[in-house]
């Protein structure tokens, strides 16, 4: 085993590859087609062989400075030019600039008579002339097997085609040979026998009325390659192959948090919201407000100035805008500003892969910070559960790698509320469940966070309200062993309010009484004080009078003594 591996490594070092420029194909082939060697693309009619070959040439001419020759054995040049104009390829312009040469080789069987031996030197000369005239590095022969119908003597033809491939190799041309799928063989005339370097098989499968194109690298000598069947599609930008399964689980996790757009929901998630680049699932039964949560998230992303891609699978753009306006979320300005792109499509319109590629393309061109799928459940109508899951896995890997926060809404049913229809919950980092709560003859919405990886989230059930002013998340009333929501909660709240009012009034009354008491006491104190003051006054006056009387008596005594000429008796010391 180890020996084989080192051998492969050795080959990888020496095998030069010619990039196709086709999105995804270079990834699957590890860099492109083998340079200077022929590659066979086989498949039934209408699988996209010609488009593959043409895109290889056009990309070579425009991106890698490798001029190329397209030799068609089936379609006249004018038809090719017209057909590929719809893919945006200007074959005429490229031909005029000598970046490309397109030729149509056809043989009318009815004109031809064969007499004896022949070879295909004329074809060689013709190809050689074209190659030299533009210095071609790439060549496409589409479909050389037509020659088998036009020329008799298969033995000669086979030998000559074998010689042609050798000739292509000797010229150092990277060639694509296309071949129709034959019965029990890859190609009708067994071309795969002659092309041993690289064989790619394309197919167009239809299951449940949905068509998917698939591609498989049957062999690639001297190189490791992806061995799976890869879905691919052809749209107006050309071919995209989805090698998404080659991605690994190595995306970086961001610790940045972004708001959910609903303040109360933020507080349930540590007050910060979701992790950037995480996947969020909002599931719930019909009419629980999943889209509203999604729209609010979109709105908040746009408010931060981030781009948001809203993939709607149920409603049209204007319907979403109108409906969200009714709950106070105005998305229209964001659309006008170019921050919000609503891409509405029916899931059944194309196959899963087409959706995947389209989302890929939208994400890579629009570069959103937030992608919303509303609802992801509808995807199940396109493929089987496994297919949908694998598609979502691929998509999520891709989005996580780009640090895009993804929000999926998922319609679930009352009986298995915590089971998502595509079993995608394991892919989700945060799961918010919206549910109906039937109490007292009415339905109300409840919201809780079922899981949130890496976030210490609240375990509380909250009531989720959609009002004209927007979304509101409130505490539910917990009491008498049950949860109260809606009018029951309102009634309970009113009762509490009334009780509180009474209590407050009581307190106020007591306060006033206290005040009055204090006032009464204070006035009593005042009265006593004034009584005391008047008594004091009286006493003082009488003391004064007594003193005056004393003085008068002593003065009169002295006068009497003077009049009697009495001697002065000195009072004894120490006596007063």
């Amino acid at each position, binding site marked *: 085993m180890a020996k084989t591996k080192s051998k492969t490594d050795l080959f990888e070092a020496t095998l030069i590859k010619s990039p196709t420029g086709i999105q995804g194909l270079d990834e699957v082939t590890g860099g492109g087609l083998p340079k200077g060697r022929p590659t066979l693309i086989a498949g039934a009619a209408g699988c996209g062989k010609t488009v593959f070959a043409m895109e290889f040439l056009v990309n070579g001419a425009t991106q890698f400075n490798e001029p190329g020759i397209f030799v068609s054995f089936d379609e006249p040049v004018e038809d090719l030019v017209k057909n590929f104009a719809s893919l945006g390829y200007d074959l005429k312009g490229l031909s005029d600039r000598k970046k490309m040469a397109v030729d149509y080789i056809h043989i009318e069987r009815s*004109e*031809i008579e064969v*007499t*004896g*031996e022949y070879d295909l*030197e004329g074809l060689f000369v*013709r190809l050689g002339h074209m190659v030299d005239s533009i210095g071609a590095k790439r060549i496409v022969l589409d479909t050389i097997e037509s020659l088998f119908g036009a*020329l008799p003597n298969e033995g000669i033809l086979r030998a000559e085609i074998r010689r042609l491939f050798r000739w292509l190799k000797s010229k150092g041309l990277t060639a694509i040979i296309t071949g129709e799928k034959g019965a029990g063989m890859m190609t009708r005339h067994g071309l795969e026998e002659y092309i041993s370097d690289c064989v790619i098989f394309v197919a167009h499968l239809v299951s449940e009325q949905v068509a998917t194109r698939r591609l498989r690298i049957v062999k690639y000598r001297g190189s490791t390659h992806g061995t799976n069947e890869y879905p691919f599609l052809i749209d107006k930008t050309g071919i995209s192959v989805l090698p998404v399964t080659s991605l690994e689980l190595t995306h970086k996790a961001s610790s940045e948090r972004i708001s959910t757009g609903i303040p109360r929901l933020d507080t349930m998630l540590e007050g910060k919201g979701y992790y950037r680049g995480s996947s969020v699932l909002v599931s719930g039964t019909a009419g629980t407000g999943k889209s509203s949560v999604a729209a609010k998230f979109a709105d908040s992303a746009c408010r931060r100035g981030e781009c948001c891609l809203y993939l709607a699978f149920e409603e049209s753009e204007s319907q979403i805008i109108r409906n969200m306006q009714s709950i106070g979320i105005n998305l229209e300005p964001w659309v006008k500003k170019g921050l919000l792109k609503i891409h509405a499509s029916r899931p059944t319109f194309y196959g899963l892969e087409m959706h995947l590629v389209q989302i890929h393309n939208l994400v890579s061109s629009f570069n959103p910070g937030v992608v919303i799928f509303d609802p992801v459940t509808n995807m199940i109508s396109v493929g089987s559960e496994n297919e949908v899951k694998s598609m979502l896995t691929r998509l999520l890997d891709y989005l996580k790698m780009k640090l895009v926060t993804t929000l999926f809404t998922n319609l679930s049913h009352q009986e298995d509320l915590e089971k998502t229809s595509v079993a995608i919950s394991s892919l989700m980092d945060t799961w918010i469940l919206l549910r109906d709560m039937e109490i007292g003859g009415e339905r109300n919405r409840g919201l809780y966070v079922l899981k949130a990886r890496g976030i210490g989230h609240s375990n509380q059930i909250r009531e989720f309200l959609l009002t004209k002013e927007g979304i509101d998340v409130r505490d539910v009333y917990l009491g008498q062993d049950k949860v109260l929501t809606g009018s029951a909660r309102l009634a309970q709240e009113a009762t509490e309010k009334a009780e509180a009012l009474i209590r407050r009034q009581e307190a106020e009354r007591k306060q006033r009484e206290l005040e009055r008491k204090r006032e009464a006491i204070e006035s009593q104190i005042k009265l006593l004080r004034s009584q005391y003051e008047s008594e004091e006054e009286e006493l003082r006056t009488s003391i004064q009078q007594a003193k005056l009387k004393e003085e008068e008596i002593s003065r009169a005594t002295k006068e009497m003594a003077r009049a009697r000429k009495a001697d002065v008796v000195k009072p004894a010391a120490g006596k007063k």
Partner: protein
Amino acid sequence: MGTENTKRKADSKAKGLKSNARAHGVAEVKSSKGFWELRLYVAGQTPKSLTAFANLKKICEEHLEGKYRIEVIDLLKNPQLARGDQILAIPTLVRNLPEPIKKIIGDLSNTERVLVGLDLRPAD
């Protein structure tokens, strides 16, 4: 017969043919047209090409004496000419005139088939 003859002449004139074409106007061969313009495509002096040319020369001398012209085109010298007549196989003999265009591939070793291809003998 007379009118038919005139018509043929007019046809020939319209195609801008040389006067000697008219000299052999009424031919004993089945074809209604009187002149064979043949082009032999080769790629270098390969044995196959040489054989083809020799065979062609012989057939023409036998069946179309004086009523034919052979142009040999060597694609190695003029590769761009391969496109016009949609030449893939070598050697290819192209009968440009009389119309319709016919192509005969191979070394022309099977005289019978060459004659059929050139409409010099009815195919059975």
